[in-house]
């Protein structure tokens, strides 16, 4: 990521008429690193397989999943899930040193795979594992890595990956390319891309790979894993209904109105960054570029202006209803529905309106 947001491009690196050096033309294929833990694949990997499928189709190349894990882990089952979501093949690397994520063996493993099979694009989820691994691998391969992309596309003129992400502290977007290096690496946050449809019965093939790295050569040891207590986990990223509050609510007390509406809808409570910074809600509830990305069926934004840093976290929602006193607030540029008014008055009215509408049906069904 460039330090100066609008970098002056040196001569010969202008996008349009760029010619890839010969030795890099052999790099072909789109890879998605499939992240898994204790028997389940992190859904972000499937979202990336879905996105990778589109990129691979545009380029006319195969889409591969990369699975690395320990002897007891169900990597073949993960592979067939990957095929269902659109992968053509999976590289499976199995070794005892890969049981449980550690930077050293995973970096070596993924680096060797890349050096051997030469993909042109490698995608990873922007999770703690993905970012840890991507940074190490990109540095080892001396190639470009773009983090937290909100959009991926292929530039028609040169087959390069155009990765878009927020910049300027989140107020603008920028498109970044890795022109003269391969592979082009990118991380994408969970929920930014949509979950693809799984085709049961779709098949692919597995390429087995081995890692020649004995345990005694690895310095970092995994001593323990302490799972989070599930009761206090806020699952904002996968919530279907989210009601979010922002600065327009004026104080912590008024967040109760957000909670009440969320409860009636059976949804989660979210917040914009200013509300979190003001200490009105827990940081885990922050939606936006530096918070969570969400894709609910219904997103209600109350007292939120809709600046880019928040927008990129929720614009994938199916239905967006915004409430703001300012008719010119940016949120009305991309929300589907809006009420121009004070959230403190409107939220209770919405709570009542939703309650009436939904309980009417309940009474009918009962």
């Amino acid at each position, binding site marked *: 990521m460039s330090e100066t947001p609008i970098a002056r491009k040196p001569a010969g690196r202008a996008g349009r008429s760029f010619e890839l050096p010969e030795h890099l033309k052999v790099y072909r294929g789109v890879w998605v690193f499939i992240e898994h833990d204790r028997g389940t694949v992190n859904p972000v990997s499937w979202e990336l397989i879905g996105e990778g499928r589109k990129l691979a189709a545009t380029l006319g190349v195969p889409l591969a999943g990369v699975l690395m894990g320990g002897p007891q882990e169900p990597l073949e089952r993960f592979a067939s899930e990957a095929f269902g979501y659109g992968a053509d093949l999976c590289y499976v690397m199995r070794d005892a040193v890969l049981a449980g994520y550690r930077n050293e063996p995973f970096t070596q493993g993924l680096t060797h795979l890349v050096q051997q099979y030469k993909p042109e694009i490698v995608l990873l989820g922007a999770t703690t594992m993905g970012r840890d691994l991507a940074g190490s691998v990109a540095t080892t391969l001396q190639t470009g890595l773009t983090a937290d992309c909100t959009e991926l596309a292929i530039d028609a003129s040169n087959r390069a990956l155009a990765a878009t992400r927020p910049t300027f502290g989140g107020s603008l977007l920028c498109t970044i390319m890795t022109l003269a290096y391969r592979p082009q690496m990118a991380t994408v946050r969970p929920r930014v891309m949509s979950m693809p449809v799984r085709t049961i019965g779709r098949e692919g093939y597995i390429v087995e790979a081995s890692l020649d790295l004995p345990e005694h050569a690895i310095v970092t040891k995994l001593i323990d894993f302490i799972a989070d207590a599930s009761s206090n986990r806020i699952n904002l990223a996968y919530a279907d209904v989210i009601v979010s509050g922002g600065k327009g609510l004026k104080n912590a007390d008024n967040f109760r109105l957000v909670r009440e509406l969320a409860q009636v809808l059976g949804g989660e409570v979210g917040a914009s960054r200013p509300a979190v910074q003001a200490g009105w809600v827990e940081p885990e509830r922050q939606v936006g570029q530096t918070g969570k990305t969400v894709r609910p069926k219904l997103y209600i934004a109350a007292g939120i202006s809709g600046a880019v840093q928040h927008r990129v976290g929720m614009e994938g929602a199916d239905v967006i*209803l915004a409430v703001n006193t300012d008719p010119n607030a940016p949120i009305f540029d991309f929300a589907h529905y809006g009420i121009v008014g004070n959230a403190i008055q409107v939220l209770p009215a919405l709570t009542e309106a939703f309650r009436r509408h939904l309980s009417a049906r309940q009474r009918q069904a009962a």
Partner: protein
Amino acid sequence: MHIVVCIKQVPDSAQIRVHPVTNTIMRQGVPAIVNPYDLFALEEALRLKDRHAGRVTVLCMGPPQAEEALRKCVSYGADDAILVTDRAFAGADTLATSYALASAIRTVGTEQAVDLVFTGKQTIDGDTAQVGPGIARRLGLQLLTYVNRIVELDPVQRSITVERRAEGGVQVLRTALPCLVTMLENTNEMRFADMDQMVRAARFEVRKWNREAAGIQDPAKIGLKGSPTVVSKVFGPAARSQKSETISLDQSTARDAAFTMVERIFTRNPSLKHDLEERMQA
């Protein structure tokens, strides 16, 4: 025990304000601060220094005005501060930045061996979280990212045990020194500098290294030249072709507006209504 903390001076995006009347984002005149994530790293380093009688050197790659950020770190208790500054570093992406910082840390190591390198999780202006891992790789340091607690540091055994945030839980990892740690936010509370430290910092001579002094071996790997990623364009988000359908409380009461809106949403999105009803029954 010698600890190097890498910091960055960034524009304070929290102070980027929205104009009260026109709603435009004001980015000008925004002061520069120490990247807030780096302060958690610095505080952790200072705590280890207090406990193990060590030295903390703060290192920053940036323009001349980044000296202020380093001075601020000295006021908190850092023993030494080095600004790696050179026009040649301009336009660096994370690969070029990690190369420059790794070279500088290597040079710092020739004065006194480095046992630990700390960085913040990410910066608030780039927020890629890539430089820490990049430095570790180049210097052959073990990498511990997203650390929320240092469980134990044993200077005699030269080992460190940490808790690392992972999806769904916390990993407890042990590795050998030297290593690189990226600290999570809100893992500690920064101390307040006292008056003596403030005045000491005001007097402090921050060392300035250009690329030669920093030990850069290959100039092709720094700055714009050393950056594989290029920004091809910067733009504002596109407005949707259709602005939202709004009801204003100028023309309607809150109650009526809410009812009308809910009605409209459900009429146009029957599957949404269905889903919500199912949730209520569940």
